[in-house]
């Protein structure tokens, strides 16, 4: 078994697991099961990134999404003890029927497009400036990303962190009902 075959088979296995977790996310009854399904999707996607050699994206996916955001999701689900109100859901409401028809149509079209084009070679026109060799020469993904983030995109980086800080302060102010 050569390397590419191995990578392809691992990607396939991870993809199948991710799809199963996605189904859990869609069809599970308890909110926590849904959240854990999403966690599974994130972990297996991170596995796919790691096996194709994009370690940085894989670890960031685990640190940020699986390690931080999903923990907060699950924490709040557990804290507020969300009850599943499956009984009260109206399966025959016109809005639900309309959205399900639209979703089904989009899904069928998407599936048709994917099946039509899935064996066409990679599109060459949309690539960024960095090739894999260039990234390795420059010292790996983290180095290249950090360098462009803190030189070229420094102002937007600072602006985004400021926006996040404002959001954080706003959340604290909103959560604290009485300010003295």
């Amino acid at each position, binding site marked *: *078994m*050569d*390397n590419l075959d*191995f990578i392809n088979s691992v990607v396939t296995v991870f993809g199948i697991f991710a799809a199963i977790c996605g189904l859990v996310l869609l069809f599970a009854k*308890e909110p*926590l*099961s849904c959240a*854990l399904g999403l*966690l599974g999707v994130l*972990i297996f996607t*991170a596995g796919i990134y*790691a096996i194709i050699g994009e*370690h*940085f994206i894989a*670890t*960031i996916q*685990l*640190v940020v999404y*699986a*390690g*931080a955001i999903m*923990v*907060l999701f*699950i*924490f709040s689900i*557990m*804290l507020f003890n969300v009850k599943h109100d499956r009984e009260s859901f109206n399966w025959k409401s016109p809005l639900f029927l309309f959205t399900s028809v639209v979703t089904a149509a989009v899904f069928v079209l998407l599936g048709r497009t994917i099946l039509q084009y899935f064996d066409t070679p990679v599109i060459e026109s949309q690539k960024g400036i960095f090739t894999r060799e260039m990234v390795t020469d420059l010292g*790996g*993904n*983290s180095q290249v990303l950090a360098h462009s983030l803190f030189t070229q995109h420094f102002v937007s980086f600072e602006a985004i962190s400021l926006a996040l800080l404002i959001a954080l302060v706003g959340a604290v102010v909103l959560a604290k009902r009485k300010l003295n």
Partner: protein
Amino acid sequence: MDIFTLAQLLAKIVFVFAVCLGVIPFLVWFERRGSAWIQGRVGPNRVGPFGLIQPFADVAKFFFKEFWTPAEANKWYYHLAPIFALVAPMAALTVIPFGSYLMIGDQIVNLQIANVNSGVLFILAFAGLEVYPIIVAGWASNNKYSILGALRGSSQIISYEISMGLALLSMLLVYGTFDLHSMVAWQGQKFFGFVPAWGVFINPIGALIFWISTFAETNRLPFDLPEGDSEIVAGYHLEYGAMKFALFFMAEYVAMIMASALLVTLFFGGYQLLPGVQAAVDAIVSMNGLSDAAAQNLKAVFQFGCLFLKVAFFMVVMIWVRWTFPRFRFDQVINLGWKMLFPLALANVVFMSVVVYLMS
């Protein structure tokens, strides 16, 4: 992937996990005998010499206990949690370098299972996943004490992960790399010709914050609120018995080993030889007239021995602390995390960046 690469990879995996899981019985023995000694008791001393076989007797007992599941538990997640608890810290262990390299024939064997491009972030990723088994176990057992333990555990781990990450960041500024091998190599330098350039001498505050945070991350006393036995019986693993409980128990020790190994790698020179060992290696090499390859292999063995000793030291201190300090109250834990360690770690990052800027 040729057969040599595969074989050396498998050998490294088996070696690391065998050492890591193999020392657990002795750690358990040490924990029980040590606690007995600290508290003026005798401790287990009947099974084997000095009671050394006691942990194995415990394991046999765990295996033959009834495999019991609470009726109201969510079976799937209930059984998943202990497995996840053991897997997360073991996955993090794969990127810890346990020696420089071996020369086998003309092939170089890098003594690290996974040479991940962003090694430290990989460890942080799996340290972040360690909160899930606690949450899932507490929720799936369907028990109020378990839920309380899970809530305590998750909030505690989230809080201390921040100061841990910031302490790590201050060291990343110094080393300028994510690669754990390069970090250890950096620490091979000497200050003034004789002081080893360990991270702890450059950044003692960062080392202290990181060390305190590892206690909280591994739920060891004085931060064992998630299982606080006097308040919530056993917390998140209250409803677990037999081997399922033993898995949580093993996971705690693997997490301790992982945290200590990371602490040693970042702040205490990793596999760098302890002072004086280099002279011993040189003496053996010159006495036996070893070739370069054999000398390097010998050095790698000594490097692993030094890493083992350093990690063992921190494990012993962890056990010592557990039986010396009382448990915090929960508000004290959260206050310490958010009002003391977090601002201190942040200030330390600023301070270290000034230091690094002035030094370069």
